[in-house]
């Protein structure tokens, strides 16, 4: 190492070693002056910014970043800081509660997860509904998360504070009461005894108050007739299970009339069959006379189509025939059906039941006389307990509207009612309302009526409420809140109490009302009864009460003369019949996308109402499906598209109520047309037989969104297998189709030949049996499944595009008159077809065609017989869907839950998303989905059993569809468990009614069907129909 004085310098400044450099050499930050002090004053020039500027820049940066962050969606996840005692993440809590809306009632269990209700199930402890929950009740859950409800009280258009609203309303009420002004409270049917007590308290504070009850789907004619006939202004309890002959006269008792949840169960009880040796081989016989093809008519063994103008005469003719008198002819088909019905009714004296959906007291009086003559009272009809489901009084409502028009009313309140929309005289009321000094609506939104009220004091959804119900006399149930109030709403009862100057605590009010009026000391201490009632949901002091009849004291002759003058045997004109859809009902819950997309059991149409017209009448009128027609009557008109409906009476049009809402929300406004305006008032009673109408083509067409467009089964015997009861009694395999394949060793059953080794199912083998004879087509399973499995709503256009997402559908087939080899003829349904419903979900094939074709193994077979779908792995080739012989696979064409096009369907907003079941993945765009047999429930049930070191017990695990089926048509279970109901059914039905769909392709489904049996005589000409 020689001369190592080589010097390294950091920069020229150091090399030069100038004065400035030396001065600053030991300072970390040199103290250089800015060359131009004015130049670097701005924040953004960089290096020479002051230290304080740094903070400014930092601050700005933070603000900018935060601002930018605002534009991207913020996913809030808020942990519990103090965890509530009874809420465990991922563990569901169940609460017993009650559903009651417009008189529709069910005792329910509400499943909540992390404090939000996510599912409604039936409460089997209730002896009224016995666990029955209709499609609409399942769907009502979504109403809780409807983003378009009011956030708080309103005065006119403006928001108002509750205190101010209370002050002003109380002041006005006080002033009105002081002047003796008339106060009216208009409500739909209220089942709650406590609410009625509240109203009574309110009325005692403001004595001019009168409570007007009306129902959009009124049966006040029946109540009136019962008052006349028996001195009992009530609806008796019907028991269809005890009837061996049932006659329905324009009465959709399985779909919409009074209490279908209850009637479905009873009805099917009388129609269950068993192929076990000495099993039940008898069933009730059901005749139906109706205008519109109803779900009830679809289940009938014999059905005749009648015009609305014949309705009364049909009842009269039946009465005459049963009592051996002569009856005027109503046409060959109807006469034949009537004769047969009369014969059967007489033969089943004491086990007969005739029900009429007419709202004409005269018709109901005749039916009462008929039932009396048949000995139905005390057997199939019970006046011991009465049903409270419809309490509306059309006459009182009519009088109220007259008063309102005359300006005699000073204050009106609307509780759970929307008469401007759903009363035939709604338009008159609309004009009269502004004249009323004080008008208050308790509705949850500014709907057609509420928007005209001076105040809206919105009540919360029933799942946020305390309430009680008495659906049948002496049968009580409680409603308890399952979530705290989402918006600043207050129960109507609390409001009324407050305005009556009482404590607004309605919970305490109910409790004391129960203590003083309902509780029976014999049941133990009140506290124990109350807690038990709250836990069970029901309190039934009247259970087990003896049935009681009633003696008929009505004036039949007056009724006969009224009927004879009002109805015509063969009127020529085109008549309109309004009807209620099974899903939509009266339209009170129209802004519910689940309900809107619920396919009507018969027409399979959704998102619309339409003119049901028979093929013959359509041809006469030059109409085809989708033509928009204008229907005019009594100065009102509506425009609806035509739907060709087999079974619709010729010369009639059927239009559903419940559509054409104007101020209900994005999902419902403008969907369909409001048919209430065409309803008639006859003697003060609302009549859905709207009489003669004129129609004209508007020249427009509107495609109706139907989930099924091909209506017949094309004589395919491996899909629908059915038999007549008499044949079944002789041979339990009657109607079965056994597919045989020719082989070198002679013909073999198709299921005996296979390329596949099959799967071992050592532990469980989940499966289902679906009884086609028990399925009434009500569709509760469809909605229950939709709720449970987060099935997306796709909207009208996408249903038109045939892309609905339902995991379970109910196929509805009409019979055809054509021969089996006449393919074109087979496409045409009979004029008055026989109908069969077939619930169809993934069949969980053991040789699943979908599994072999998936390139990425996204769909595989489980060891428990399930066909599994792995959404994450799916790349969306749709080959599985193509290769599915049952077409049950659904593809996510769009990102349904998060796209603007689907924003009206509640899934796309934060509130609506709260309905999502956290146990089930929400599927994204581009993947296939399908029924999983509620694998999340199976898994949960298995874990529960495992924790307790036991096998799962049959019935412990239920799929959403099987749990919701009111008639137990769908039985789910473990086929490896010999004790399961499923194994027991299959044990004897395997050599009886059980068949698997499309047996000849040998995909070996885990789901079996039981043949449809019709209680029809063999000699009927259409015997060999498939």
């Amino acid at each position, binding site marked *: 190492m020689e001369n190592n004085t080589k010097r390294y310098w950091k920069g020229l400044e150091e090399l030069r070693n100038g004065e400035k450099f030396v001065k600053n050499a030991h300072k970390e930050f040199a103290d250089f002056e800015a060359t131009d002090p004015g130049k670097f004053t701005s924040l953004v020039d960089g290096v020479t910014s002051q230290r304080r500027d740094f903070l400014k820049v930092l601050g700005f940066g933070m603000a900018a970043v935060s601002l930018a962050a605002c534009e991207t969606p913020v996913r809030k996840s808020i942990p519990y800081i103090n965890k509530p005692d009874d809420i465990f993440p991922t563990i569901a809590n169940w609460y017993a509660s009650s559903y009651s809306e417009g008189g529709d009632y069910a005792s329910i269990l509400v499943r909540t997860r992390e404090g939000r209700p996510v599912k409604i199930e039936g409460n089997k402890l209730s002896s009224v509904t016995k666990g029955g929950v209709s499609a609409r009740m399942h769907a009502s859950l979504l109403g809780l998360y409807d983003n378009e409800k009011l956030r708080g009280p309103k005065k006119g258009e403006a928001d108002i504070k509750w205190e101010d609203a209370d002050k002003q309303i109380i002041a006005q009420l006080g002033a009105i009461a002081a002047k003796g002004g008339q106060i009216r409270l208009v409500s739909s049917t209220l089942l709650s005894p406590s609410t009625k007590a509240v109203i009574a308290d309110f009325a005692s504070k403001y004595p001019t108050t009168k409570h007007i009850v009306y129902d959009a789907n009124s049966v006040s004619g029946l109540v009136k007739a019962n008052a006349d006939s028996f001195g009992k202004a009530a609806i008796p309890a019907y028991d269809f299970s005890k009837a061996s002959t049932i006659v329905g006269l324009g009465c959709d008792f399985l779909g919409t009339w009074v209490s279908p949840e209850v009637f479905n169960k009873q009805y099917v009880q009388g129609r269950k069959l068993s192929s076990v040796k000495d099993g039940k081989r008898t069933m009730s016989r059901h005749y139906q006379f109706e205008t519109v093809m109803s779900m009830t008519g679809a289940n009938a063994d014999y059905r005749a189509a009648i015009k609305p103008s014949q309705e009364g005469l049909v009842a009269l003719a039946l009465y005459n025939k049963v009592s051996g008198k002569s009856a005027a002819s109503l046409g060959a088909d109807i006469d034949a059906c009537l004769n047969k019905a009369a014969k059967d009714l007489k033969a089943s004296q004491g086990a007969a039941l005739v029900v009429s959906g007419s709202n004409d007291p005269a018709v109901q009086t005749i039916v009462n006389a008929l039932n009396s003559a048949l000995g139905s009272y005390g057997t199939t009809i019970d006046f011991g307990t009465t049903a409270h489901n419809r309490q509306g009084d059309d006459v009182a409502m009519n009088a109220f509207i007259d008063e309102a028009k005359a300006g005699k009313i000073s204050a009106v309140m609307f509780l759970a009612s929307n008469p401007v929309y759903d009363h035939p005289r709604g338009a008159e009321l609309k004009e009269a309302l502004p004249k009323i000094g004080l008008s208050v609506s308790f509705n949850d939104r500014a709907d057609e009526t509420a928007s005209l009220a001076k105040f809206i004091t919105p009540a919360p959804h029933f799942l946020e409420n305390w309430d009680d119900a008495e659906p049948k006399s002496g049968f009580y149930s409680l409603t308890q809140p399952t979530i705290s109030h989402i918006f600043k709403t207050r129960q109507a009862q609390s409001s009324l109490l407050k305005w009556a100057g009482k404590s607004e605590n309605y919970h305490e009010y109910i409790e004391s009302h129960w203590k003083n009026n309902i509780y029976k000391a014999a049941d133990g201490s009140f506290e124990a009864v109350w807690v038990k009632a709250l836990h069970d949901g029901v309190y039934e002091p009247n259970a087990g009460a003896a049935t009681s009849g009633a003696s008929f004291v009505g004036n039949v002759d007056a009724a006969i003369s009224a009927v004879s003058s009002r109805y015509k045997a063969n009127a020529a004109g085109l008549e309109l019949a309004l009807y209620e859809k099974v899903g939509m009902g009266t339209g009170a819950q129209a802004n519910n996308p689940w309900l809107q997309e619920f396919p009507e059991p018969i027409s399979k149409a959704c998102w619309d109402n339409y003119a049901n017209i028979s093929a013959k009448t359509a041809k006469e009128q030059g109409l085809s499906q989708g033509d928009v027609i204008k229907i005019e009557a009594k100065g009102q008109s509506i425009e609806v598209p035509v739907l060709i409906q087999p079974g619709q009476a010729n010369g009639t049009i059927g239009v559903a109520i419940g559509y054409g809402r104007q101020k209900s929300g994005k999902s419902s406004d403008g969907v369909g047309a409001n048919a209430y305006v065409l309803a008639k008032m006859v003697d003060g009673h609302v009549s859905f037989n709207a009489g003669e109408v004129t129609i004209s083509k508007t020249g427009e067409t509107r495609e109706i969104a139907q989930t099924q467009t091909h209506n017949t089964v094309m004589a395919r015997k491996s899909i629908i297998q059915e038999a007549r009861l008499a044949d079944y009694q002789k041979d339990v395999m009657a109607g079965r189709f056994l597919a045989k394949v020719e082989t070198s060793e002679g013909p073999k059953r198709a299921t005996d030949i296979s390329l596949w080794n099959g799967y071992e199912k050592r532990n469980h083998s989940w499966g289902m049996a679906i009884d086609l004879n028990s399925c009434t087509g009500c569709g509760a399973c469809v909605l229950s499944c939709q709720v449970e499995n987060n099935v997306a709503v796709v909207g009208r256009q996408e249903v038109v595009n045939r892309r609905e997402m339902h995991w379970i559908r109910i196929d509805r087939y009409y019979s055809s008159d054509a021969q089996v080899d006449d393919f074109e003829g087979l496409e045409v349904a009979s004029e008055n077809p026989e109908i069969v419903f077939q619930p169809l979900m993934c069949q969980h094939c053991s040789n699943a065609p979908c599994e072999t*074709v998936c*390139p990425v*193994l996204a769909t595989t077979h489980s060891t428990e017989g399930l066909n599994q779908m792995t959404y994450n792995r799916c790349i969306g080739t749709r*080959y599985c*869907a193509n*290769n599915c012989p049952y077409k049950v696979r659904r*593809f996510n064409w769009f990102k349904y839950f998060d796209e603007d096009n689907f924003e009206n369907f509640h899934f796309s907003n934060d509130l609506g998303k709260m309905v999502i079941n956290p146990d089930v993945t929400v599927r994204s*765009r581009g993947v296939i989905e399908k029924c999983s047999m509620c694998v999340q429930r199976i898994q949960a049930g298995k874990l529960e059993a495992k924790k307790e070191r036991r096998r799962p017990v049959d019935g412990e695990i239920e799929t959403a569809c099987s749990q919701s089926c009111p008639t137990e048509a769908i039985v789910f279970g473990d086929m490896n468990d010999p004790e399961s109901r499923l194994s027991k059914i299959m044990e004897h039905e395997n050599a009886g009614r059980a068949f698997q769909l499309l047996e000849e392709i040998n995909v070996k489904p885990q789901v079996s069907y039981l043949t449809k049996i019709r209680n029809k005589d063999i000699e009927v000409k259409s015997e060999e129909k498939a």
Partner: protein
Amino acid sequence: MHVTSSVRTPLVLGGKTYADVTEDVIRHVEGKPTKEWKIALGLSMVVLAFGTASVFWTWWEGLGVWGLNKTVGWAWDITNFVWWVGIGHAGTLISAVLLLFRQKWRTSINRAAEAMTIFAVLCAASFIVMHMGRPWMAYWALPLPNTFGSLWVNFNSPLVWDVFAISTYFSVSCLFWYVGLVPDLASIRDRAKNKVSKYIYGTLAMGWNGGAKSWSRYEYISLILAGLSTPLVLSVHTIVSMDFATSVIPGWHTTIFPPYFVAGAIFSGFAMVQTLMLVTRVVYKLEDYITIEHIDSMNKIITLTGSIVGVAYLTEFFIAWYSGVEYERYAFVNRAFGPYWWAYWAMMTCNVISPQLFWFKSLRRSVSFTFLISIVVNIGMWFERFVIIVTSLHRDYLPSSWAMFSPTIFDIGDYVFSFGFFFTCFFLFSKFLPVVNMAEVKAIIKTASEKLPKNVSGVSKDERLAEASK
């Protein structure tokens, strides 16, 4: 090198010399792009741009923009896929099978036909990706080691077979095409006047020196690749047909599909080759290379394969009746007389009836009539796939699910995309690469030196041609 006897009828007309061949073909590569070419390319790029926009929107919004539904899960997407794959078959058949059968007339058309194959397969592949619900996951269909655990593809699935079949087919076709190009690329390199072309074509020619050893290897590799490709001609469309044949859907579940699909593929492929070659020969003035004899031969193959396809159609009907399966019977009755009867009869007319007109020699040798029929056949073959896919799906087992399919603007737009892509590629190919395999054509022109005038050197081509035509 082959030697062609002077007594045979010439396959190349016009008394071409080796120099003429080179000149006639390379002229288009070396020359400035013509106006016609620019217009054609511009037009196809406009179509491509529109198609790309449509494909982009399909991808952005989801497959809901198509007209598919819960019942008809495939329609135009897979129809287009099968159609393009089928078209591709002619290229391989011409280069491989005809090579093995020593059909020397193939040499003038095999280059373009192979290029067509490659572009057609690319178009087909684009529909494979496009039809997926989640195309960004397309690579999951490959048996790749992955981070998702022991996930593997489903070797039972015909779609996985498709992935192998199409990718093998594509790679072998590319290789075959490129190997054939090497001597011609060397010719271009040798004549290239500017550095860029010299560099590019030189690189692509991979040091081809025209030596006897090189030619010998060239011949060997061609033969080997021909041997490899020949089974592919059969296998690719066999496997594509299994997409349908292995399913349970009536109308798909048919054992006749493999031969029927292969015949159909060759049928449509030859028609497409006709369409393209008839245009190319006029535009590039290659009438002497692609002669009426070529057109005549290809028309004969079209008639043959068209007849096979026709017999297959009828066989399907017979079997549907003979099987006794009610679903199968209905599927075929529905094809002919159901709501999509027009598609069926369009298919029948285009595929079965129209090629039979080629029994007339005058029609078979008519350029304009051939062109018309070549288009008609491809329309027919598109309808064949549409009929198989859509009419089988739209009414299968359960009548409750029966539905109709109608295309949307995006179904059409995405199909248009493939045309834009195909023609853009084809026009670029026809400009920058020799459209006729010069090396092989030279092997079949007559070594008819005796026909040449004495004073060859210095005499212009026109004079020579005029001389030759005397």
